């Protein structure tokens, strides 16, 4: 994993943004769900996308990862155009996403769940596993070790052998984040990680996000929870009715009149 200085050094020569989204558009039926959305995710930073319910945040996520087909626009990741790539290919490039509802693998324990995340970088073949070759077993041990560290990181080490679905919702959310982290992403996309978490758990999540940033992993965050976003984000993108209405640092966003309007309602709105 890169250290901060490595990341900075690389940054000076490499691409300026990890993820570049340009003029994204998507309609459902006649409704323009997403229109002209453009933003960048800078290296070793946390970018947050916020907006009222139904603003189209998750749709943007699904357009980036090709789960939905985009009508127009371009998404480039580390300088590569993602057009036409499958979800698997995108994941293998290092863009790892989580889902809005925690999607831990049922029927697997916490540790197994995290270990699945190690799949992207594992090189062992089926044949070497079948023959119990020492290289495969060594790799297996390494993955187990790293997975244990990951559980340690979010304080779930005691629950390593608990079935993931039996964990409380907050723990499942954290588990999903570290499972994604286990894949050593080059960009981590989190879809409402704080949904369903209480204040303490949200605090833990904020610490985890900062830890992830300090590891040099850039994060794109879709979030509802304002205090979390204002706490951890370096760059905030505000989206309303499918268009970007403001971008900037948390401090700038908090003062932005259009953002306040979008969140607190327009005049004459909501009185009927």
């Amino acid at each position, binding site marked *: 994993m890169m250290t901060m200085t490595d990341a900075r050094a690389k940054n000076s020569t490499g691409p300026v943004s990890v993820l570049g989204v340009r003029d994204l558009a998507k309609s459902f039926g006649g409704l323009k769900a997403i229109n002209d959305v453009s933003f960048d995710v800078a290296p070793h930073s946390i970018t947050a996308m916020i907006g009222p319910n139904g603003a189209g945040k998750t749709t943007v996520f699904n357009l980036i990862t090709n789960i939905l087909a985009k009508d127009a626009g371009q998404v480039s990741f580390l300088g590569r155009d993602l057009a036409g790539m499958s*979800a698997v290919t995108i*994941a293998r490039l290092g863009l790892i996403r989580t889902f809005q509802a925690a*999607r831990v*693998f049922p*029927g697997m324990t916490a540790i197994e769940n995290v270990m*699945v995340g190690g*799949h992207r970088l594992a090189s062992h073949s089926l044949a070497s596993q*079948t023959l119990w070759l020492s290289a495969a077993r060594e790799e297996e041990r390494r*993955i187990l070790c790293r997975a244990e560290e990951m559980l340690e990181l979010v304080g779930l080490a005691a629950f390593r052998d608990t079935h993931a679905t039996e964990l409380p919702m907050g723990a499942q959310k954290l588990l999903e984040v570290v499972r994604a982290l286990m894949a050593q992403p080059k960009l981590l996309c989190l879809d409402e990680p704080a949904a369903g978490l209480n204040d303490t758990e949200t605090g833990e999540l904020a610490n985890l996000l900062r830890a992830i940033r300090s590891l040099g992993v850039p994060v794109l965050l879709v979030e509802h929870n304002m205090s979390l976003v204002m706490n951890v984000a370096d760059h905030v993108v505000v989206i309303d009715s499918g268009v970007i209405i403001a971008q900037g640092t948390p401090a700038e966003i908090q003062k932005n009149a259009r953002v306040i309007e979008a969140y607190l309602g327009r005049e004459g709105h909501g009185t009927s």
Partner: protein
Amino acid sequence: MIELLQICIGGLVVGSIYAAIALGFSLVYRVTGAVNLSQGGFAIIAAMIGYTLSVSSGLPLWLAIPCAVAATVIIGVALGTFTFVPALERLSNANVLMLTAGLLTAIEGLSLVLWGSQPYAMPPFSGETPLVFGAIRLPTQAVWVFGSVALCVAALWYLIAKTRLGKGLRACAENPAAASLMGISVARMTLLSFALATLIAAISGVMVAPTTSLQFDTGRLFTISGFVAAAIGGIMSFPGAIIGGLFLGLATQLATAYISSLFSNAIALIILLAVLIFRPSGLVQGSVARRQDTRDEVKAVGHAASLPASLALPLAALALAIAILVPFVVTDNGILSGLVIALILFMALMGLDVLMGYAGQVSLGQAGFMAIGGYTSGYLAINYSLPSLLSIFAGIGMSLACALILSVVTLRLRGLYLALATLAFGLLVDSCAVGFLDITGGPSGLVGIPSFSVAGFEFATPRAMYFVVLALDVIILAGLAGAMRSGFGRALKAIRSDQMAAAALGINIIRYKLAAFLISVTLASLAGSMYAFFFNFLSPEMVGTARSLELVAMLIVGGESTLFGGLLGALLLTLLPTVFQPLAIYKTFAAGALLVASFLYLPQGLYGAVVQATIRLVRSPRETIAKNSSETSARAL
């Protein structure tokens, strides 16, 4: 021309029955999202009861037939209440489908016990003299069939479109969660749809009885044809079911008349596979799409039982030691043969477990690959005196080639359609095994297959064969255990429980599913070859669809995603009938009933029960040690 019309009438009679059964499929599927394979069984039960009452007991038809239908519906409602309805709450739809396959097997087994294996012929209701229209002769029974099926369709249409009850059924079909919030009892509606489907099946079974010969396993034919008809027509649509049924009836009758009766099934199945490839939702699209998010969500994927590592190795060594000693203690050749069969089936079961238990891919046609492997190696060994090992590899190569072609269809399918495609494949192999007389020996089987031999040493006795098969099992088990406890097994389990999340972590779903499929095919083919070598003989029913369903039963009863569980299921279902000869007739019934009971009451299978008992046994004397070791090393095999 007259001949053609005459054949078409025959086709429409058969087709109406298929249509009625397909209607039942469609009804239950639309209301519950699950497929009920037991319907054909109810058709045959009704027909058998009707025969017993009218022919054996001499009751008049007007009394015997309603009684038979009523009795069948009562049996159906009872079975539905205690199996289908609770299963829908607990099991995934794919497992519910397996459970109803178990119900079908149990019903077949019960018919075998009650009515024996001989065929029955029910006399036509209104005599043998056909109605004559010019040159065309219309059998009176055809009128009965057309009339009753038309009446069923009309009554069902009225019930669904015009009554309050029908509104409830439709609400459940579209959105069960919202329906229950509106005060509709989803469980009651589920049972109602099950009962209605049983009623339709019972009526059509009684009506069609005089046109066909009745046997304990005729029900499976009805189920399969109805299922195929529903899939061809489109399972989400009632007109689709009727069109599919009539089309299938016509196609099979015309094929029988103008091509060959041996291949009439094959033609139906090829039509089905074509529909699945080019128009997976059937010829007629349903008017209302089912909301995928409401019923199809993952219903608690079972937690597989696992032994603590501290116990796994010693126990495995103990089991192996016992297995090696058994042939020296057991001298009875019958029991030893039973053990060899169980060990051979265990090979196929380990493969099936990788495919079904780990990757979550339903397969109802696994015996088809046993057939391809067995017939290929048997044929080569007889006609070209190919050494055993080479002929086994030839069989595996042949099976893999067929598997790759089939995977073009199956890799795109899930759940119900996957089950259907694999079932169709198994049946296709069945009808080829019967049809290719020159290669397979047809229905009477392939005789004179040499025993398994390596480098001139022949393993002709059960005891010699026992050690060969045991050695193969141990090697396969060790290899698969290595893969399943590592990244490969984890990736399969991830795919089984959440495809989208697995893909988002970079797991190539197609590749892993294909790998699991090819592993299962290789092992099934190997098992088929060993089976042929052991019996020196292979016939279609030894590796037919009944065997496929039996393999599923063995796996579920033994315990899924444990690799080892299959052996327990195979031993139970193979040895019990061998040891207790008088009980042999109950074997089919037991396989079905045990499958259903395992799904409902023993979700971890026998293996799970054994594991829990062992853990309890070991823990009680040395509580503290066990606790510590389980905390530090609960990694299991």
